[in-house]
């Protein structure tokens, strides 16, 4: 076995004419080292990891268990506490519905946050329809929750508190250790959606008193279609499964484990763990270069969310008086997103930005830049040039920019909302 991190990080060459990818919070390209680790498991070592009677099954089982250990290692868990799922959406659904349903005779209250991923919010709404009480905590202007408000929200009826570690749109990091301590003190389970956090910031399920943690493969340079859920054994967290039959994953998640995908997410965790510290430093430098370059050349731009408590690879900026989707079209040499990729088909401005108290007007002007493993300094300089050009082009076309230059406050105008 090669030592983790022994293989240098490959560079992904950008096909000629392809846009510069700056959307690492939507998804990450699979690392070629991960793909290489996965490939033999499709064609040569194709056994079912649950077959216990022959080499094909054993070698697949061994690979799956190694991957489970690699996932456990990056979050400080025991491998027995990690179950495989089809992705973070399933992990979040399973954690919330699973705990709520198992403990429903004793407790009926859930606490979560308004800026959670849609799959957490939709699951909570579903549980409300089933009769559970849900408290949706607000966030402060910087995107972080107020711990005093959280403490006040937890009651002896609270079964589970679900707070994401890192927000997918604005990249802010919630105070996990403090939240964990509060939950432990008050006797509620602490679930955290770590899809955007694993491999980006140090995580330790014991130090942070985390009881359940959702993990995604494709946000950490692993494959899509695989995720994991950490489920604490001591004190034990119990779940009602969503998918039954076969009894795999300690009865919490049935279905044949897809060996190549398990190997992929495991390898992705191992690489991320080995490279996290140096990568964080590199990305922080690139992000500062991006923000500095834009600020130097463009007035009236605003960073959404706390800049200090934020993962290195995220920047969310409002470009005042320029509409975000129009701007995206203007920077077609860049792959970026305006709001969350999941919601961008709708015309509603981001609910996350709205929750921070960002004006609807400004929410419409936001772009999310996601930087990652294959982002280079050249990419950043290229991005700055194109963004500046597009913003200037669109501002020259914007009636609101004219008003701003004329000193007219656009809020003072009676707009006919349509």
């Amino acid at each position, binding site marked *: 076995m090669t030592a983790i991190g022994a293989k240098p990080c490959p560079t992904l060459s950008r096909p000629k004419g392809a846009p510069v990818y700056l959307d690492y919070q939507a998804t990450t390209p699979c690392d070629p080292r991960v793909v290489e680790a996965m490939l033999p498991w499709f064609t040569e070592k194709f056994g079912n990891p649950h077959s216990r009677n022959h080499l094909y099954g054993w070698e697949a089982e061994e690979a799956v268990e190694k991957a489970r250990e690699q996932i456990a290692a990056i979050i400080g868990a025991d491998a027995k506490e990690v179950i495989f799922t089809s992705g973070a959406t399933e992990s979040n659904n399973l954690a919330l519905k699973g705990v709520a349903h198992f403990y429903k005779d004793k407790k009926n209250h859930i606490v979560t946050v308004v800026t959670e991923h849609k799959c957490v919010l939709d699951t909570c709404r579903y549980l409300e329809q089933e009769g559970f009480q849900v408290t949706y905590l607000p966030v402060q202007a910087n995107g972080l929750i107020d711990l005093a408000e959280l403490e006040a929200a937890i009651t002896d009826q609270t079964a589970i508190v679900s707070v994401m570690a890192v927000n997918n749109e604005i990249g802010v990091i919630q105070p996990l250790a403090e939240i964990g301590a509060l939950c432990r003190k008050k006797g509620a389970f602490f679930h955290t959606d770590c899809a955007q956090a694993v491999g980006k910031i140090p995580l330790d399920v014991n130090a942070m008193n985390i009881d359940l943690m959702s993990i995604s493969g494709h946000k950490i340079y692993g494959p899509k279609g695989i995720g994991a859920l950490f489920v604490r054994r001591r004190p034990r967290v119990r779940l009602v499964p969503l998918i039954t039959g076969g009894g795999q994953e300690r009865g919490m998640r049935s279905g044949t484990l897809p060996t190549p995908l398990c190997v992929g997410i495991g390898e992705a965790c191992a690489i991320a763990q080995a490279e996290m510290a140096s990568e964080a430093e590199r990305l922080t430098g690139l992000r500062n270069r991006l923000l500095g370059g834009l600020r130097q050349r463009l007035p009236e731009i605003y960073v959404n969310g706390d800049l200090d408590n934020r993962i290195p690879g995220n920047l969310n900026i409002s470009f005042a*008086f*320029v*509409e975000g*989707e*129009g701007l995206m*079209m*203007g920077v077609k040499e860049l792959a970026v997103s305006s709001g969350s990729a999941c919601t961008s*088909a709708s*015309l509603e*401005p981001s609910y996350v930005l709205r929750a921070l108290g960002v*004006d*609807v*007007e400004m929410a*419409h002007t936001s772009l999310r830049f996601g930087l990652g493993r294959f982002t280079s300094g050249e990419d950043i300089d290229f991005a700055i040039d194109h963004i500046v050009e597009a913003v200037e082009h669109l501002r*020259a*076309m*914007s*009636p*609101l*920019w*004219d008003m701003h230059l004329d000193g007219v406050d*656009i809020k003072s105008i009676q*707009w*006919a*909302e*349509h």
Partner: protein
Amino acid sequence: MAYSDKVIDHYEHPRNVGALDKDDGAVGTGLVGAPACGDVMKLQIKVSAEGIIEDAKFKTFGCGSAIASSSLVTEWVKGKTLDEAASIKNTDIAQELALPPVKIHCSVLAEDAIKAAIADYKKKSGKDEEAAE
């Protein structure tokens, strides 16, 4: 979503961006939409003594489809009488630009902008009653 070639062309090479003197009696200005809704269009027309639109300018805050819709209508209204311009329908704009269903409101806004500019011109030149006859 994929934009049509015509939308991209108007977005990249917008026709008639700019402003006319809003205090000129021959100029009608329409300002429609709202920043909170993600699009604002300002459309201005300059009308000759014969009632022909001889110039049109726009400025738009919005997505590519909104920019393209306003750019397109500045081309369309030029050389038309006020009545002809007022008869431009949002469906014509949507069809010309092959707008997807979620972007139909951009064409509606452009139609509104024409109507608002004409109304402003008529109001300024005291032709409201004349038009009503």
